[in-house]
């Protein structure tokens, strides 16, 4: 049947011959409809070109440049292949310290957030009445979506010498705790900023946990703690692993928080990278150092995958 003979909006059959341009448009639509690959190619051309020509090209250039060097005299890139940047990373003890500090604090933040989030998510999903549960859910989303920079800044105010923390500690009779501008401050602030990223995957893991498993465990004589350890925990572990991907990766790549709340000896990998791109104008070395968190993250993802993290994302 000729596709141009359809039913009009008033329900009457359209028999009058449609205009040529309309026929052409319907033909074109039919051609596209019958050839899905053509539509896919047309749809993907613009976003694909954007990603390939800008983003992927930039990433490839970056990692190739890790194998280049910078002329010390002119400050220009020299395009001959060398592993000097990576050698420098391994040889200079300061860089090793910075890498270990970054990875160590990222691990500490991940552990802290898991410990903070697990009982909270358990309460929200399994204990709290429905009303309270949806309130708590919004309460987790609000800090997640509030400005990152602002939340770091407020901790700089809280932890400073005459900030809220010291005032509160002195009021309850404990001495002031001067942890502003230190690694402790970085640890607290990262744990605060990324906490919602840990809560949400654990929350969904608890939602997927069937009540009947817990009932069965209790029927078979397990007490509360035993049920938690042998039934609940293994089943929410993929959620914890999923959350830990965020807390760990986000901490590894950050330099704003160490800049704002860290002290003199608190540089992260990100800080060294930032200084080398901006002030020192040594992009090859910055690129080489940026490979470190990528490799660490790659290894981490392989581990998280074995714990079922990807299914829990």
């Amino acid at each position, binding site marked *: 049947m000729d596709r141009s003979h*359809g039913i009009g909006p008033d329900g009457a059959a*359209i028999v009058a011959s449609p205009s040529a341009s309309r026929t052409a448009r319907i033909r*074109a*639509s039919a051609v596209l409809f019958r050839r899905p690959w053509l*539509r*896919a190619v047309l*749809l*993907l051309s613009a*976003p694909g070109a954007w*990603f390939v020509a*800008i*983003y992927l090209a930039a*990433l490839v*250039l970056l990692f190739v440049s890790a194998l280049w060097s910078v002329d010390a005299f002119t400050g220009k890139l020299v395009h001959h292949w060398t592993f000097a940047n990576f050698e420098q990373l391994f040889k200079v003890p300061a860089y090793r310290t910075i890498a270990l500090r970054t990875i160590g604090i990222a691990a500490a933040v991940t552990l802290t957030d898991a410990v*903070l989030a697990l*009982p*909270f998510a*358990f*309460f929200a999903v*399994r*204990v709290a009445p429905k009303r309270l549960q949806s309130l*708590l859910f919004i*309460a987790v989303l*609000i800090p997640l*979506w509030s*400005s*990152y*920079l*602002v*939340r770091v800044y*407020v901790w*700089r105010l809280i932890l*400073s010498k*005459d900030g*809220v923390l010291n005032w509160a500690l002195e009021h309850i009779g404990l001495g002031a705790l001067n942890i502003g501008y230190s690694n402790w401050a970085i640890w607290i602030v990262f744990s*605060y900023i990324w*906490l*919602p*990223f840990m809560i949400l995957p654990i929350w*969904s893991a608890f939602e997927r946990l069937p009540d009947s498993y817990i*009932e069965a465990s*209790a029927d078979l004589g397990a007490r*509360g703690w035993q*049920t938690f350890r042998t039934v609940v925990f293994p089943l929410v572990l993929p959620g914890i692993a999923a959350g830990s*991907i*965020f807390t760990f990766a*986000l901490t590894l*790549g*950050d330099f*704003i928080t160490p*800049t704002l709340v860290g002290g003199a000896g608190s540089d992260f990998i*990100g800080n060294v990278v*930032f200084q080398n*791109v901006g002030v020192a104008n040594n992009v090859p070395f910055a*690129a080489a150092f*940026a490979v470190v968190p*990528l490799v660490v993250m790659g290894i981490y*993802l392989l581990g998280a995958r074995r714990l079922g993290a*990807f299914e829990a*994302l």
Partner: protein
Amino acid sequence: MIGASRWSRVALGVWAALMMAFLFIPIAIIVLYAFNPSNVQSWPLDGLSTKWFSSAWHNAEMRHAFWLSVRAGLLATAIALALGSMAAFAVHRFRFFGREAISFIFVLPLALPGIITGMALNSFITFAGVSFSLTTIVIGHATFCIVVVYNNVLARLRRTQTSLVEASMDLGADGWQTFRFVTLPVIATALVAGGLLAFALSFDEIVVTIFTAGAQNTLPIWIFGNIRLGQQLPQVNVVVLFVILVTLIPVALAQRLTRDTGLLRSRARPPGALPQGTGQLS
């Protein structure tokens, strides 16, 4: 509920209350500091005052940075809406070779640390001999905003039956009519929500922006610079409260629009790195 004794329930409730305090006391403090009458940022505040509001509002540098952020956000959002929804349509409708790889590449800007995206774009811009401008900021922002729109539209399309489109074509509509009267109404709220989230993300972004702005100041860069140098802090306190509102209002609206798809739950990426849609990694 099940499996928890009365005491452990009470203990869990107390824990949850402590977590709420941990999450919200800092936010309350930032609100209070905006009304700090003093030049000195010490606690407790000596009263509350709105005296810094007008000087913050009239700060020329701040206004300039604010408008740059708004323009960058709007442009990046417009590009993201067009490219993100095209990509979502392609990945949703068709099975083709390399489809998984493509959907992986689209979420990469959120999955990779912002510093890597930023540094890569920075050296690419320098390498290409382009000078830093509004355009370079928009390029950086659009790259990660595309993902937000892509995720929103894709989630909506997955909940829509393709038979609607087939029915429309069978009834004689051409491609444009089908898009205008069938597809667009179905994805409209997902598009608006994606656009709002993209704008909020762009407005607050600092890591990629630092690398793509050159000497220009967006609002987050202006705030960051002042905090670091300890300058104009009373005005920063006011601006920072305003930034929280500007980022939260679009997100609240987006949440209402996509209640069914519940997309906000999958946000990941931060402001440093909002890994929204890293769910695609598997």
